[in-house]
């Protein structure tokens, strides 16, 4: 066994590019870049006991959004009610007050009206400080069994839009920038100021078979 110092021949790496291109095309074709997007919701935990566990909410703290079998929407609280026949009217076409404005009026209760949710003073930390908020308000979205999913999402979207606009306004007011440019902590602060309190009730048969 003579020890010969052999030179390692240079590997021909010219096909390396071809191989990696092949792999690249495979992954290009296989990958789907579309990110799923949607309206995030949190469901209440299942009732622990057989009897219905319902939370009593003061009448003034409740905004009921009803979507019936004919895909018409009614929004109602102690202050009054509004009827929307189409999705366009939901957004405030015609003489109707848009649903999002109804929701905003309800959540803010700037006039401290007795028909709108009660205001309680809460501390949200600097720079917001102690401000009165409607901490107990609930928006209850109720639907019929034959309501179409499209209308339901449209209504949900309008309610979420109201909250998003409130948060945007809050960010402008307290931080002087848009909500998107805030840090995570600041966004949490704003979210705490305007929490999404949307309840999705069990379906009932409101009109229609």
């Amino acid at each position, binding site marked *: 066994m003579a020890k010969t110092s052999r030179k390692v021949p240079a590997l021909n790496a010219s096909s390396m590019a071809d191989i990696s291109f092949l792999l690249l095309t495979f992954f290009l074709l*296989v990958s789907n870049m579309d990110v799923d997007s*949607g309206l995030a919701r949190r469901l209440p935990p299942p009732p622990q006991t057989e009897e219905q566990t319902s939370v009593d909410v003061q009448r003034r703290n409740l905004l009921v959004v009803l979507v019936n079998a004919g895909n018409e929407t009614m929004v109602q609280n102690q202050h009054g009610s509004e009827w929307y026949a189409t999705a366009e009217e939901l957004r405030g076409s015609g003489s109707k007050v848009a649903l999002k404005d109804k929701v905003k009026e309800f959540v803010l209760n700037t006039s401290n009206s007795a028909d709108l949710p009660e205001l309680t003073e809460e501390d949200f930390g600097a720079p917001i400080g102690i401000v009165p908020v409607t901490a107990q308000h609930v928006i209850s979205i109720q639907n019929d069994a034959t309501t179409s*999913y499209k209308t339901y999402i449209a209504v949900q979207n309008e309610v979420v*839009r109201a909250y998003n606009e409130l948060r945007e306004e809050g960010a402008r007011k307290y931080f002087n920038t848009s909500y998107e440019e805030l840090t995570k902590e600041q966004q949490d602060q704003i979210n705490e100021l305007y929490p999404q309190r949307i309840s999705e009730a069990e379906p009932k048969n409101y009109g229609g078979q």
Partner: protein
Amino acid sequence: MSSIRNVFLRQNPKTTEDNNMGKFNKGAKKEMPALNSSSMPDIVFAILFFFMVTTTMRSETLMVRMKLPTASEVQKLEKKSLVTYINIGPPMEVRLGTGTQMQLNDRFAQVSEIQDYIAQEKASMNEADQPLMTVSIKADEDTRMQYITDVKQALRQAYALKISYSARQGQN
């Protein structure tokens, strides 16, 4: 001055051509230098790794037809590994009728099977990720709410409380 230039020239004989700046000598035969392509595999590998990391190998084929509703306030679902999908809509195959069907994984399923499906999906997840699990309901826009409500109730029973109504971004 010229002597300095000569020294320079002697040291770098290649730059003689560059010296007659401003003159376009078309007659001079220039050879196209071979492009150094040795870094090509590196670049391709870099792109390759990017796609390998971002890709999700969902072999699931859609068996239901669905036109997602549009909404303007949609949020992106951040981590794909935490998302479980429930597809709802009329079946792709015409001979199966137009009734609303639900697809879990690669087959049609009944609403009653959701609990098992969620439990199974949860079990396959990292324990720390389990409470972050999100169920994306991808339903056709013409679905009756009765069906969605049943699915929601089943999800509640299965303790999959974080849900997302999948929707396309757009003016609604």
